[in-house]
């Protein structure tokens, strides 16, 4: 069993109104960042877990996302990184 740090991004599903993202977009436009299109505000989680290898650690975190960390109705998730501790 090896220890891993698995990072996961959880973001509002595209097409659903994201009021935080919209507020940040508007503020960036006000600051002159005219090239900014859309901003999406989500969550970043870092999960320290034991697994036999990196693939198993990632698979385990995917299951965690499906069961608890992301809402299947309104959110998408992506594994951002798997690092051996």
């Amino acid at each position, binding site marked *: 069993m090896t220890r891993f740090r698995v990072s996961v991004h959880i973001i*509002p599903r595209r097409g*659903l*109104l994201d*009021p*935080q993202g919209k507020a940040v977009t508007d503020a960036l436009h006000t600051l002159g960042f005219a090239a900014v299109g859309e901003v999406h505000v989500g*969550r970043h989680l870092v999960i320290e877990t034991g697994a036999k290898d990196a693939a198993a650690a990632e698979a385990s975190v995917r299951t965690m996302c499906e069961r*608890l*960390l992301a*809402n299947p*109705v*309104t959110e998408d998730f992506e594994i951002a990184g798997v690092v051996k501790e």
Partner: protein
Amino acid sequence: MKVGIVTFPGSNCEGDAFHAVVDQLGEQAVMLWHKDHDLQGSDVVILPGGFAYGDYLRAGAIARFSPIMKEVAAHAAKGGVVLGICNGFQIACEAGLLPGALLRNDVGYRSMPVTIRVEHTNTTFTSVAKVGQCLTMPIAHGEGRYAASDDVLDQLESDGQVLFRYVNAAGETTVDANPNGAMRNIAGVCNAARNVIGLMPHPERAVDLLLGSIDGLVLFESLLVAAHA
């Protein structure tokens, strides 16, 4: 009628629910701790408002795994009535007892009276109300924007599961009458079996003229009629 009121760490409307059931309806209520494994013979279970587990992760996401939720799900599966109010609605959605999800409001936290229109009366929570009846009661939430896929929304509409919509004083569903950006102005829904009901507004805070409205009473009286039927 015996009503079980579940208290999670961070619930804050369990006392209002108790007041509505015991003082206004004159019925029995029992407080159930979220770690309990027994509904103590409750006919109706209320998941009250508040901020269970501080709304950490997502509102209701962690509360749905509290030990008592297994018993609540079993009660619902047997046809027992479950009523989720505000945070309780969020918990019921997260638990899969109700379709859809409650997202962050389009414009921040809202605490205000709203008017909702009763869309269907063939549930234990709306049987004494009239279709089209408008009820005024408070909302107080930051994550109450009802959302589901278009397919799910269409199915809810065709099956008559949209029980309440936000409306203006004339009873019309307008953008201005919608306090949180909810899809199709939806304020409350029920499950396909019609025994699990969730809504964002607080009927339990509208049962006493001292608090400005008694429009919530008709919903609690519906529960009573169903229990004695």
